[in-house]
């Protein structure tokens, strides 16, 4: 037993180390090949990450990515590929902003209302894909791509001043109107103009714990994972696969809806044309990188937030910012390839053990039989 644990530790550490080393080396090669200093940009980014205001940005972005990636991951756990997180996120942010701006309630209630509306909206939008899949067999990959585009149009229409939107005097932006202060989620001010850590970031982390618990410690989670691992086995075990698909799609959409909340409740307090987009796509990468595991996703989200934010001043120093995107791509490939290599090694080890065990059990018999 001790030996297995040591092995496990070694194997567990080997993957990430191999990945990080190889991705850094590859990135440096790209820089070198284009005649740039291979060390300085990385140095700059690490330096940047040492500053409090950038740290705040990184932490806040991590929270947003974390939620969106959880949304993607829960689908993946079920073999569902929710490419529509981005659309669900945008639509939910917009609708909840409208609702939030149109009412005034005591603090916690106001926030709760907005959050619930966001989760429901996201779930609703994802649910369409879920229903299409369970009743009509439409691949969720296609339907969520379509729903992303449809969400764009729907939002564009809803946000027109003649519908639900507002065009602030003198602005060329369209917004949903400002949410009253009672609906703002209190954050932690880091002082000295370093910005605020969104309070919702902690909700995101808490949801990570919930995600872990629900998946690993509840019947529901077991059913969900079982369905993801083998739909046929899960069905035979008593899982209603269709309901499971719909449920996980709804949860995924709900989480996607929540991923707009850090920004909405902690920063903008309104949904406007300049509300951040594309979160849902980055989240796919993060979920894959974090292997759909709540802790893994946290690290992956942190890594991506770091690459996003710590690179903000690279262009000022004369390095194309795109280098971070190349790094992201390389990291993903390096991580999965090295995990695969390590996994192959690990499986071989495990089989060897099973083999040894079996051999030990049958050894005596074999010897006797040879003479037969």
């Amino acid at each position: 037993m001790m030996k297995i644990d040591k092995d496990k530790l070694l194997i567990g550490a080997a993957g990430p180390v191999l990945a990080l080393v190889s991705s850094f080396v590859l990135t440096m090669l790209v820089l070198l090949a284009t005649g740039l200093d291979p060390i300085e940009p990385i140095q700059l980014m690490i330096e940047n990450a040492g500053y409090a205001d950038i740290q705040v940005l990184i932490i806040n972005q991590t929270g947003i990515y974390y939620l969106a990636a959880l949304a993607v991951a829960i689908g993946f756990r079920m073999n569902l590929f929710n490419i529509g997180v981005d659309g669900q996120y945008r639509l939910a942010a917009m609708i909840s902003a409208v609702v939030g701006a149109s009412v005034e309630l005591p603090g916690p209630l106001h926030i709760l209302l907005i959050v619930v509306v966001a989760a429901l909206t996201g779930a609703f939008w994802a649910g369409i894909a879920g229903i299409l899949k369970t009743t009509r067999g439409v691949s969720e990959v296609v339907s969520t791509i379509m729903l992303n585009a449809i969400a764009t149009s729907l939002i564009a229409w809803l946000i027109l001043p003649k519908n639900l939107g507002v065009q602030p005097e003198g602005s060329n932006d369209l917004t949903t109107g400002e949410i009253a202060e009672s609906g703002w989620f209190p954050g932690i001010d880091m002082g000295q103009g370093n910005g605020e850590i969104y309070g919702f970031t902690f909700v995101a982390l808490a949801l990570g714990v919930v995600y872990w618990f629900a998946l690993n410690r509840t019947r529901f989670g077991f059913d969900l994972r079982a369905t993801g691992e083998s739909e046929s086995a899960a069905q035979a075990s008593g899982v209603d696969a269709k309901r499971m698909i719909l449920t996980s799609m709804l949860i995924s959409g709900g989480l996607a809806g929540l991923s707009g909340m850090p920004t909405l409740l902690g920063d903008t307090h309104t949904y406007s044309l300049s509300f951040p987009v594309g979160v849902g796509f980055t989240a796919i990468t993060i979920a894959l990188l974090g292997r759909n595991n709540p802790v893994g996703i946290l690290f992956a989200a942190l890594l991506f937030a770091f690459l996003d934010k710590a690179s903000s001043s690279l262009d000022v120093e004369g390095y194309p910012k795109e280098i971070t995107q190349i790094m992201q791509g390389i990291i993903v490939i390096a991580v999965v390839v090295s995990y695969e290599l390590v996994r192959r090694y690990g499986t071989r080890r495990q089989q060897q053990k099973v083999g040894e065990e079996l051999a030990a059990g049958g050894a005596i018999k074999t010897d006797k039989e040879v003479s037969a």
Partner: protein
Amino acid sequence: MELHGITKRFPGVVANKDIAITVRKGTVHALIGENGAGKSTLMKILYGMQKPDEGTIAIDGEQVSFSSPGDAIARGIGMVHQHFMLADNLTVLENVVLGGEKLYGIGAKARKKIKEISDAYGLGVRPDALVEDLGVADRQRVEILKVLYRGAQILILDEPTAVLVPQEVDALFDNLRELKAEGLTVIFISHKLGEVLKVADDITVIRRGTTVGTADPKTATTKQLAELMVGSELPSPETRESTVTDVAMLEVKGLTLLESGFTGAPLTTAAPADPSATAVVREEVAAGRKLLDDVSLTIHKGEILGIAGVEGNGQTELIEALMGLRAPDSGGISLDGQDISALPVRKRREGGIGYIPEDRHRHGLLLEAPLWENRILGHVTEAPNSKRGILDPKAARKDTERIVREYDVRTPGIDVTAASLSGGNQQKLIVGREMSHNPKFLIAAHPTRGVDVGAQAQIWDAIREARREGLAVLLISADLDELIGLSDTLRVMYRGKLVADADPATITPEQLGSAMTGAATGRLEGGDERPEQSEQSEDGDAR
């Protein structure tokens, strides 16, 4: 052909160890041995799918070394694998010509050739049918045709009879004899010793990776072969005293299941151009083929009811309907006096149905999950796996350890994945799991398929044990000896109907086999070749 000193090691296992076999030209050479003895591995080596670590292969006295099946095929070797190697979504023609396109192309010439071979051996293969629409026996024929098409001189058949009924086996053997007469060499693998004696010219026995002896089929008996194979007497599935009671545990009445067509898609619905075919197809879609046709049966406490039938005659559908995986179009099911027709799978399982699925990989296990999670599968709502919706991994683990101990599941621990266990051990885990919840009624579909002799005996024991305590069992198996030996009552299923019943005490596998092909109906009498047409009621139990 000569194999010499073949050794093959897998991580942790020595599959073949210094094997030496000589196969005479123009003979049927049988290879026997228990599960995992290394037969398939040896054949894969001979077929170039795996590379031996040591040893040499010589064909017609010439040393060869294959790096891919392509090389072996070029040397005139063909192999029919233990598990079908067919692409479902391709036609028979495509499956046959694949890899051998150079021979006759992939068009009309190839089709003609296939027809020719098919007619010559009476295989009755339709080149343009989708493989997916074929039954097992047809698939087997396609596999054989694949080999003949390539003009193989050496034919390897890895357990070709496992899924065939006796009549089909006979037909296959006729084909083999014909091939032999044409000068082909056949290597034939089987667990069924009777068959081996019938068809083989030479027999080689493999045990734990090495050749332990040869036998002459003219003089050897199955008993001798078995002893050579296992080193001890083969256990038999024989059930001793009857434990059948009068209390009905499972009652099925008039279960009917139609093959459902698709509805609601008028946009692309289209019928074939041929008008006569159109009519047929229309009718089928309107009425639906009957997968289960008015099936009625009763199983009592302590009774094992065996169902014999060629695969694809509704057994799978019957199980699925009983489990609640499929909603029947009509008919009722009641368990222990309670109507369960409308209950979902989970409720039925909670209500006391245990399930040993026919395909353990698809329906019984999460291959990539650890053993203790597999122990939870199917019983997530029951103790000790969970309490009030929350899993109790500790208790589940503890219970898994108990199962591993009691059912002799050979594994280094309960954290290894199910995939890393051998088939027999996987099956023992499933049996242990299902028995742990004291089922009232057990569905056992091919409970010992592909399982080695030791594990087989353990599984039979477990089932018998539970039966003694009042368990009702529905046994479905392709192994007629198992079926006859274990069952208290036998029914035969043909085209979705229960067409015949028999007394396991007197019936022979051959009789059963003929009923399975639809040649005999009603009550089958042991010893009497001609079944009498009894008009026993459909829903009565079969005694």
